[in-house]
């Protein structure tokens, strides 16, 4: 007998109410961002959410205009939610498995900006290239 033949389906979609608290936390962070310029991060994995809670949270936050894909040791996706400055960040490993998930409240998520050290070595490469070309 294969697993799908077993006639038991467990409902994992049940809502526990915990996702409601996350929305409240996002509201506080967003308010903080406007007042002090400091946002914050909520670690989705660190919260006791049922699979249903997670889906509910995603639905409540909705979808905004920006979607960024990164190829950094496995795919990552940064989605703007319907609330400007509220980003849903998903990190997958190289096998495509979701390894961590965050809600970040920031004008621009930090991961996107280039690091000065990397900019410096990039500039050096460009200088060398230009020198070779001239």
């Amino acid at each position, binding site marked *: 007998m294969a697993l799908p033949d077993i006639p*038991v*389906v*467990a*409902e*994992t979609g*049940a*809502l*526990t*109410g*915990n*996702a*409601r*608290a*996350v929305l*409240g*936390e996002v509201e*506080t*962070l967003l308010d*903080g961002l406007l007042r*002090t310029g*400091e*946002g*914050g*991060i*909520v*670690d989705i*994995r*660190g*919260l*006791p*959410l*049922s*699979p249903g*809670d997670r889906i509910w949270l995603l639905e409540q936050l909705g979808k905004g205009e920006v979607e960024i894909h*990164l190829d*950094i*040791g496995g795919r*990552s996706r940064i989605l703007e939610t319907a609330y400007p400055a509220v980003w849903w960040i998903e*990190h997958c*490993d*190289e*096998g495509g*498995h*979701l*390894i*961590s998930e*965050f809600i970040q*409240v920031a004008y621009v998520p*930090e*991961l996107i900006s280039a*690091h000065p*050290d*990397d900019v410096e070595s990039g500039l050096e490469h460009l200088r060398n290239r230009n020198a070779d070309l001239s």
Partner: protein
Amino acid sequence: MSDNRILETLAGQGISRRAFLKYCATLASLMALPPSAGKAFAEALAKAPRPSVIWLPFQECTGCTESITRSHSPSIEGMIFDMISLDYQETLMAAAGHQAEAALHEAMERNMGKYILIVDGSVPLGLDGAYSCIAGRSNLEMLKEVAQGAAAIVAMGSCAAYGGLPKANPNPTGAVAVSDVIKDKPIVNIPGCPPIPAVITGVLAHYLTFGSLPELDHLGRPKSFYGETIHDRCYRRPFYDQGKFAKTFDDEGARKGWCLFELGCKGPVTYNACASVKWNGGTSWPVESGHGCLGCSEPDFWDAGSFYKALSMPANPLKLAAGAAVAGAVAGIAISVSNKARKGAAKTGHETTTLADLEKHHE
């Protein structure tokens, strides 16, 4: 220790700074550190040197080694292997026999006093240790010799941490834990049958970042992973609080995902991170799959009675459920607050976490 720094080593393998930041954010999440800690973590880890690690498997089933090496590869757990210099691991290394023994002694001499020793499996003391020998030497003899030059010891899995399954009644081989034999070295216990792969990653990452072991509980377990019970972090907890229990594995309650307490779940007395870190690359964990926790990260869990017998007393009496008045939202807020307390160093999500904050968190 090898002189090359972690970020340089990773860059040499084509791992970019952003990939490293992502790794550190995930690691901080796994270690229940505040989310903003990922950045501070990355800064410290980037500069840390790669330590030498010697790994000895004793009286065990190799499940612990399987747990960490067969986790989705390449994975967050696997990346730690790029950060350490694994100089001896009998199960994984190509060398065998005299060559393997020579590799062990060479690694010990080169890094005397500085290497980390990982042990999986218990140490049998019966018949002068004859129940488990490697290269004609008992586990006991080998442990004593290799522990001498170790900076710290990681006892991986319930067998190394507490004696585990080999120690179950009537303990025919006289199995004991590493800490029963070695008394003069810092030992961190990472129990679980098997342990969660991310925990060993977290402990090694902590050692690399701070040069010390993380804060431990009274059973020698890192508090960041074993600081709360399965029950504290279980997403079915609101059902427990509301008094909604599955009575059999196929009743309506089971289908609705209610609490498994009455089906023998040992979550209320078991300290481990399964409920938040989960298993199989974060896919699911036992309670999410509909089975109660067995309590595998607690000492002598094999001898604690049937896995299906309900604990005699609820850990936190069902007072909360009186009148079943606990609305989901209220329970949710309570959990959110406990999450904040857990992430003590975060203070609030508004603050930037520095390395000093992390050190405080782990003092």
